[in-house]
């Protein structure tokens, strides 16, 4: 099976090669993020043996008695997020959460050249391959690329780690834990898991494609989004508040059930946001399509009305970023208010790291959106070329593409920001300083998200210009 898949890959066209390259790059990135989390969790306690008799440890902060007899505090790392053992699981979790947008990206990459790949799979069916064999060949196609990406990610991680460590000046705290070795078992698990996750993401992304021997590709009816996810969203936000209340009343005494309940609430909220966004997109699109007289808006609205899930799927990673960024913004404000100026810098730097992580996730999500948009344009190139040939200005098509991305993004981002705010308030319900909503920061989060969606779409416009080439109209 692998042999057939590799032979098929070797005969691939340019679009297939682009897909393979992006799958390799995405998998390498996923491996890098996963290994970062592993390394952070592998930072051990430092003891006197590693540093000499004059040293002792206290929560990762190395206290050395210098020759002068004066105690000097030397930290192992510049960031207290790495020095404090209690914060390291949170840092590792942040790295692993970055895998979500990367997996969405991998799913979007798997759709590239879908039409060409579908024809290839149909040809394989015609040659006698069973549906199961065809599905395995398609999965192997993605799996091989993801495995190569995982190995490349491991290699890149080791090289980068060695380069950073080489620049370290002895006796000074390290910026990154480059002194920590990679645990073999966890590393092997990551390198094995990334291709499996990549395959899972692509199978999920292509679940509606069915190749038949006749070369037909049947896509199951896309169901219209329902309004019930709004209830799911409200329930998720409320559920997030539950563990905080239980903790305050003394019903929860350990960390594990608290974290489990919070995660369950957040996951419900995430599902609620994504499904609500699709419903909201469909509703807004229908309303616009019925009343607009602008051709660009009509084209965009009808496309959105036809497949509201498609656009939400493309922007889902961005919406997740908004949810987490909004939640973190509220919690940051509540935390900084409650701790006062004493530990303010420490917590501020911790939340800055969260902001940086969300920023990276947003960049990955926006890249995935570019890929999804380009693929959507390429898939419709004949229709677009025919429209231009019939006298539709390219500007109308450009505006339609922008409207298709930005119009549904505004309400969806608003829902995600509100949900994130709700989660932040729910988690910070125990704060003694009352609820302080950082409105300006939330507006910036929403603005950056909508802006990144607009920018990602703007980057698609050159592909649109190429796709409306009259050569697409040739039938000979």
């Amino acid at each position, binding site marked *: 099976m692998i042999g057939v898949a590799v032979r098929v890959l070797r005969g691939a066209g340019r679009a297939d090669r682009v897909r393979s390259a992006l799958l390799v790059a995405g998998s390498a990135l996923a491996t890098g993020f996963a290994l970062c989390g592993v390394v952070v969790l592998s930072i051990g306690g430092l003891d006197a043996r590693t540093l000499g008799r004059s040293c002792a440890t206290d929560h990762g902060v190395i206290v050395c008695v210098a020759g002068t007899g004066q105690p000097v505090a030397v930290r192992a790392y510049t960031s207290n997020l790495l020095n404090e053992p209690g914060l390291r699981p949170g840092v590792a979790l942040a790295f692993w959460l970055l895998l979500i947008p990367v997996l969405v990206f991998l799913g979007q990459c798997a759709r590239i050249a879908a039409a060409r790949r579908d024809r290839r799979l149909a040809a394989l069916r015609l040659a006698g391959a069973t549906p199961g064999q065809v599905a395995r060949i398609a999965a192997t196609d993605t799996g091989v690329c993801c495995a190569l990406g995982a190995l490349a990610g491991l290699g890149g991680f080791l090289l980068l780690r060695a380069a950073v460590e080489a620049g370290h000046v002895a006796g000074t705290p390290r910026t990154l834990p480059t002194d920590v070795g990679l645990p073999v078992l966890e590393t092997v698990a990551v390198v094995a898991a990334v291709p499996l996750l990549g395959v899972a993401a692509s199978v999920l992304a292509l679940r509606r494609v069915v190749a038949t021997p006749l070369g037909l590709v049947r896509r199951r009816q896309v169901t219209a989004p329902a309004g019930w996810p709004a209830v799911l969203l409200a329930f998720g936000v409320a559920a997030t508040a539950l563990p905080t209340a239980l903790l305050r009343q003394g019903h929860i005494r350990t960390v594990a059930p608290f974290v489990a309940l919070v995660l369950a609430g957040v996951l419900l909220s995430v599902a609620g946001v994504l499904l609500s966004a699709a419903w909201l997109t469909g509703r807004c699109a229908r309303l616009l399509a019925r*009343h*607009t*007289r*602008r*051709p660009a808006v*009509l*084209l965009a609205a*009808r*496309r959105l*009305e*036809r497949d509201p899930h498609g656009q939400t799927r493309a922007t889902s990673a961005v919406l997740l970023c908004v949810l987490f960024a909004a939640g973190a913004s509220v919690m940051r404000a509540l935390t900084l208010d409650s701790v006062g100026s004493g530990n303010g810098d420490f917590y501020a730097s911790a939340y800055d790291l969260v902001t940086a992580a969300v920023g990276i996730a947003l960049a990955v999500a926006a890249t995935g959106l570019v890929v999804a948009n380009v693929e959507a344009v390429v898939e419709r190139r*004949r*229709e677009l070329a*025919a*429209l*231009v*040939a*019939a*006298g*539709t*200005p*390219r500007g*109308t098509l450009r505006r339609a593409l922008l409207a298709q991305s930005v119009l549904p993004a505004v309400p969806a981002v608003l829902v995600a920001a509100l949900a994130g705010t709700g989660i932040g308030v729910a988690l910070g319900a125990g704060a003694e300083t009352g609820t302080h909503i950082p409105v300006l920061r939330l507006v910036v989060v929403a603005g950056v998200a909508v802006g990144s969606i607009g920018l990602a779409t703007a980057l698609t416009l050159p592909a649109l210009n190429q796709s409306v080439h*009259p*050569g697409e*109209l*040739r*039938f*000979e």
Partner: protein
Amino acid sequence: MREPVLEARSLVRSYGDTPALRGVSVAVGAGEVVAVTGPSGSGKSTLLHCLAGILRPEAGEVHFAGTRIDTLSEARRTTLRRGQFGVLFQFGQLVPELTAAENVALPLLLDRHGRAESLTAARGWLDRFEVTDLADRRPGELSGGQAQRVAMARALVTEPQVVFADEPTGALDALAGERVLTALLGVARRAGTTVLLVTHDTTVAAYADREIGLRDGAVERADVPA
């Protein structure tokens, strides 16, 4: 031949190293139905695209109603195609998400006509092609012949002077193709619209007033079918 409304003079166009047109000159009279025929790769579609202002020739001139159009900007050629020309292809020309009526109304909306006015006009044209009852359906819910009728309504909704049809029956069975062609030419002849029909099918070409045969990017013959 009637007074030429469309004229090509010594058109040259190639795709990379492959020449598609080698100095083609043709003239089409007002209200005439002309078939451009020839084997695959003879340059039929390229000639149609150059005459419709979709492609610019590398050399030569294209004149429409006394105006040279190959030197116009893309924006002006687009406006010309929308207002004075109607374009019809083999398939894949309707926007799948729009209803049949909205597809037909699209050129009018692009010309800044009101929504209600555009949709009323669109329904009128759908009626002429006997597909009024399909106005609210989407292209995916139409048969090939029905979709071509909707496409013809869209090509004619702006009442163009010339309709360019590139293998309009190529994706249809013989009976559906005949019905589509009869409907198109019937409406065009009544309105005095010039039709340039690209086809490799001699039975389709027989519907035309005149046939221009191409081979290897050059005019082989320009005569009236028997």
